[in-house]
């Protein structure tokens, strides 16, 4: 069972640091934690075999402090670094630095990270691999070029920044007369946010679902397609809140086409290790959106239905070993849902909160998995992501998974900060969600409906 790694430094914090620590320990690999001064009492520090403080609270000086992290790896004798998600996980330069110091970066090659990190490059590669992408342009050099595309594809269209993310430099254009103004404001915004004002256009799909495919590939040419996840329940900021696998109401033919495309994409990028291909689904059609070259927050729903440990496979692949499954060994079983318990106030635009946790009671029982760094008395520092815990419910079918999740959320007690738990119960018991197959506009519409109801109640 033991992977060929001698010691793994985990360059992350919170639940994902614990997740990696668990996989290492189950494979008998010693671990090294890094932490900021704000995380001295964190569970990920206590559970690791060694731990190094790498800087003060703010991420830029600790969890992104590459020299201190590499130095900690060298001093402790770690021969591999797992970046988790966020922080340095999709930093091609960091992956190169690891390589230059003889440390295995547990993830894809720097080249793959770099290629997929630039949206225009990623799209070009996918087009070459015959992966369907949203009809769109290259970088637009002029208003005329943009207008010609919009005419051809039909309004509405979407302006996007090539260096973009998080909705910055993005504009929906519903008619020709808005186009010029939108192009110029999107470009300035992109320039301000990323130092790169280049934009391109895409056909706007108005009610898409977010469907993503989990892939896993080793250095021996084996590629596993681990089904899809539906992550359409997103906050207005496009951050995922509830994810599930398999995607509800998808036909067998849709799936077959999706998996074939995913396999082609992985081969086109010569991708190695775990990754996720994100698609927008529009009825029977789907379009490549981007590839995340790391393990994702929502990976446990895939683990639940395939009964596989993705992080262990990541470690094996990084050690140059073969994946421990072949595609034919894998069979999805039942349905899984993940809810993100965030220290946020949904009634106040999901404003994040920090504080100390007074009472922590986590759910348990059949079909419930909890991944968290929470404990009673733990503090939630203001510097980092607001996610406190992930709850994963697995059932024989979607109805059972939902029923389990609802009862698990009702069992969950986190006092000291506001959380997304009550709001997620609302979503899970909403008939539209229960029917399955909502689009990414569902949650914003639900929120708008609620504030209208509240406003009506007040007046």
């Amino acid at each position, binding site marked *: 069972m033991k992977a060929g790694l001698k010691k793994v430094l985990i360059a992350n914090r919170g639940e994902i640091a614990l997740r990696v620590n668990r996989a290492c320990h189950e494979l008998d690999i010693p671990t090294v934690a890094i932490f900021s001064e704000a995380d*001295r009492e964190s569970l990920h520090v206590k559970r690791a075999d060694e731990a*190094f*403080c*790498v800087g003060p609270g703010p991420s830029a000086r600790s969890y992104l402090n590459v*020299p201190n992290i590499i130095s*900690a790896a060298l001093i402790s004798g770690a021969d591999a670094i797992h970046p988790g998600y966020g922080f340095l996980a999709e930093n091609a330069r960091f992956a190169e630095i690891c390589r230059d110091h003889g440390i295995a970066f547990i993830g894809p090659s720097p080249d793959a990270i770099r290629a997929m990190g630039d949206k225009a490059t990623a799209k070009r590669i996918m087009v070459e691999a015959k992966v369907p992408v949203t009809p769109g342009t290259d970088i637009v050099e002029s208003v005329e070029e943009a207008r010609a595309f919009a005419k051809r594809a039909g309004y509405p269209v979407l302006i996007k920044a090539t260096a973009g993310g998080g909705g910055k430099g993005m504009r929906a254009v519903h008619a020709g007369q808005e186009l010029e103004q939108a192009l110029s404001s999107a470009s300035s915004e992109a320039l301000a946010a990323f130092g790169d004002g280049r934009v391109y256009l895409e056909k706007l799909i108005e009610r898409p679902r977010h469907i993503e495919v989990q892939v896993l590939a080793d250095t021996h040419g084996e590629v596993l397609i681990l089904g899809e996840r539906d992550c359409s329940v997103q906050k207005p900021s496009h951050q995922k809140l509830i994810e599930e696998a398999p995607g509800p109401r998808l036909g067998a033919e849709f799936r077959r086409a999706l998996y074939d495309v995913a396999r082609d994409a992985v081969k086109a990028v010569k991708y190695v290790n775990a990754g996720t291909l994100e698609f927008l689904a529009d009825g029977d059609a789907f379009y490549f959106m981007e590839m995340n070259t790391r393990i994702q927050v929502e990976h446990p729903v895939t683990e639940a239905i395939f009964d596989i440990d993705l992080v262990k496979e990541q470690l094996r692949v990084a050690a140059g070993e073969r994946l421990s499954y072949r595609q034919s060994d894998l069979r999805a079983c039942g349905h899984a849902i993940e809810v993100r318990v965030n220290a946020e106030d949904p009634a106040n635009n999901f404003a994040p909160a920090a504080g*100390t946790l*007074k*009472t922590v009671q986590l759910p348990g029982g059949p079909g419930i998995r909890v991944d968290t760094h929470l404990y009673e*008395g733990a503090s939630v520092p203001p510097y980092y992501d607001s996610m406190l815990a992930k709850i994963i419910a697995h059932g024989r079918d979607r109805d059972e998974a939902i029923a389990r999740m609802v009862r698990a959320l009702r069992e969950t007690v986190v006092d000291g900060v506001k959380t997304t738990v009550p709001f997620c119960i609302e979503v899970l018991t909403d008939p539209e969600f229960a029917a399955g197959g909502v689009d990414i506009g569902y949650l914003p519409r639900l929120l708008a409906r609620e504030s209208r109801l509240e406003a009506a109640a007040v007046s």
Partner: protein
Amino acid sequence: MQNDERESDVRGEIERLVRPLLQTFDEGDLVRLAVDEEEFALEVVRRNRPRAVTTGSEGMTGIAAADLAGGAPQAPERPMELVTSDVVGVFRGSRPAVVIGERVAASRELGYVEALGIRNPVRAGRGGAIAAIMVEEGEPVEYGQPLFGFEGGE
């Protein structure tokens, strides 16, 4: 009768709470203090101190006993000025090595922390008399780890 019992429970609880509390403040570092009640909750959390300090010299444990009955707390001992590491690396001392009690100038290089082949000098801060040497030759050090203590310079 029931109320009498509760009355003495209350006094007992307070006594049992306060006595060890005082001792504890004297002996250790209170990390967290919590009162958990159905309609009321209190939590007091002490700001973290750098981890290495708890294993440092006696000069650091000068926490006076607080007198709940209203008496004045004892005056604290003069605190040490700490020189800490800004990087993760391996400590190497300068030659000749400094010794406890030695007075050094602010600019004095006491050693360096080697990280990724780069020597990051460790200087004597505001200078003064060395009160504690908290690191050994060749020891791996982390960010914020106290390396040297100086007598309170104020």
